[in-house]
C-alpha cells in the first residue's frame, strides 16, 4: 500500500528549477532508497516529504505530496503535526546538549504525549527500538555527547521514534559513521521497517542495495534539473536496470 504518493512534483530555489516532474508511490513499511550523483536533488526531494524546505526562504513547489491520501501542502496543514508523523534523521548525529534521557524525552514532552503514557516507558521503548537500550540503560543521565558517533546516531533515531511517527526520512544517516556503526544502522533500519515507512537518501550504492526494498534513481537532465530516471524494486535496479543512465551510474561508468 502506498503511504506517500508524489504527483508531478516540481521544486524551485528562487527562479531555479531543481526538481522536475517527480511522481512516485512510496510503499508503507518498506525502505525506499533515493540514489544518484551529488547535486541531483535527492535530499531536496526528501525534504519535500515533510515540508522541511519550508524553512528555507524563497522556495516553491508545485504538484502534490499525499500522505495517507491527504495533500500535505494544502493551506492550513498542521506542519508540526506533519513533522511528528514524518520524522527525520540527518547526516551528522545532532543530539541536544543534554542527557540521553532528555534527548529522547524532548519530543514527547513538547507534544504532550507523556500525558497518555509514562515518559520513562516511552524513553525505554524508543531506545530499545533504536537498538541502544542495552548500551545506555545504566547511564541515561549522562550527556548525549559522551556517546560514540554511531550511538549518537541511534539516539537520534530513538528521538524520532519517541514521538511515534509513521514515516522516517533519513538523509545519509551513516555517512559520518565507521563501517561497523554503519552496518548497525542498516540492521536497525531492517528492524524499524516492520513498523515504519523509511525513505533514505544515500551516496553509498551498496548501502541502498543492502537495505532498501525499492530504489529511485535521480539524475540531472540536459538542462541541469533533477529528474527521476528510474524507480523500481531494488533487486531489479541493481541487477537489471532498464534505463541506460541508471546502468551507467550504478556500474560506475557515469556520474
Amino acid at each position, binding site marked *: 500500500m502506498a503511504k506517500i504518493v508524489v504527483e508531478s512534483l516540481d521544486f524551485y530555489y528562487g527562479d531555479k528549477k531543481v526538481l522536475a516532474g517527480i511522481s512516485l508511490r512510496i510503499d508503507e513499511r518498506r525502505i525506499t532508497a533515493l540514489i544518484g550523483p551529488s547535486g541531483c536533488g535527492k535530499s531536496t526531494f526528501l525534504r519535500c516529504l515533510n515540508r522541511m524546505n519550508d524553512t528555507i526562504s524563497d522556495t516553491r513547489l508545485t504538484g502534490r505530496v499525499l500522505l495517507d491520501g491527504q495533500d500535505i501542502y494544502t493551506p492550513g496543514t498542521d506542519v508540526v503535526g506533519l513533522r511528528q508523523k514524518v520524522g527525520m534523521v540527518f547526516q551528522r548525529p545532532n543530539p541536544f546538549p543534554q542527557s540521553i534521557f532528555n534527548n529522547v524525552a524532548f519530543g514527547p514532552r513538547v507534544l504532550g504525549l507523556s500525558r497518555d503514557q509514562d515518559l520513562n516507558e516511552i524513553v525505554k521503548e524508543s531506545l530499545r527500538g533504536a537498538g541502544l537500550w542495552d548500551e545506555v540503560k545504566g547511564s541515561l543521565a549522562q550527556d548525549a555527547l559522551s556517546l560514540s558517533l554511531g550511538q549518537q546516531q541511534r539516539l537520534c533515531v530513538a528521538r524520532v521514534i519517541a514521538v511515534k511517527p509513521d514515516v522516517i526520512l533519513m538523509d545519509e544517516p551513516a555517512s559520518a559513521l565507521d563501517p561497523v556503526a554503519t552496518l548497525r544502522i542498516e540492521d536497525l533500519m531492517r528492524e524499524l521497517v516492520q513498523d515504519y515507512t523509511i525513505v533514505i537518501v544515500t551516496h553509498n*550504492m*551498496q548501502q541502498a*542495495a543492502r537495505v532498501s526494498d525499492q530504489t529511485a534513481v535521480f539524475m540531472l537532465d540536459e538542462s541541469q534539473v533533477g529528474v527521476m530516471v528510474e524507480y523500481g524494486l531494488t533487486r531489479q535496479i*541493481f*541487477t*537489471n*536496470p532498464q534505463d541506460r543512465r*541508471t*546502468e551507467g551510474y*550504478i*556500474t*560506475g*561508468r*557515469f556520474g
Partner: protein
Amino acid sequence: MLRQTYERDLGRLQDDLLALGGMVEEAITVSVASLKGRDMQASEQVIAQDRVINRKRFSIETDVLVLIATQQPMASDLRVLAAILAISSELERIGDYAKGIARINLMIGAEPLVKPLVDIPRMAEKARDMLHRALLAFAERDTDLARTIPEEDDEVDDLYNQVYRELITHILTNPRTLDQANYLMWAAHNLERAADRVTNICERVVFTVTGELTEMDHHPDTGLMDRAGADSG
C-alpha cells in the same frame, strides 16, 4: 572513462573465458580424431590437457570472486560475471566429455574398430562448431545468434540416434562387438551432452544481455539416453 582498472580486469576475464573455450574446442576435436585414428598418444595428451582446463576454470572462478569482492560490480557487469562463472563451469564439463572420449580410445586399445567412424566425427564437428559460435555470441553479446544455436542441437541428436541404432544393430548381429559398441555409444553420448551444454551457454548469453533466464532446451527428450534417464543438465 571511469574505473579503468576495473574495465581492464573485466575485459581480461572475458578473454580468459574465451581462451578456456578454445582449449575445450581443441579437446573435442583431438579426442575424436584420436579415437578415429587410434592415436593413443594423442588421447593421453587430451587427458593431460584436461587438468590444464580444470586449473584454468578454477583460476577464472577465483578472479570472478575477487572482482565481486573488491569492485562490487552491478547491473550488466554483475550479469557478465555470473555468466562467466556459469559458462566456465559448462566448459569444464564439456572438457570432461572430451577426456571421457580419450579414455574410451585407451580402453578400446589395440582392437580394430567394428566400423569406420563417420557420424561420431560429424557429431564432434557439429558440437565444436556450435560451441565456437556460442562463445562468439557471448563475446559479441549477440542474442540473435545465441537464440538460433540451440535449434541446431537437433542435428546432433539425430546423429546420435543414428549412431545408437547402428551400434545396436552391430551388437545384435555380432555380440562379440558388445564391449566396443558400448564404448562407442558412450563416446557419442558424451558428444550429445556436450551439445546440450552449448545450449546452456546460449542461455547465459541471453541472460547477460537481457537479464532474462529462459530455458532454450526446445526438445528436452529427443535423446535416447535422456529417455533412459541418463544424467541431465
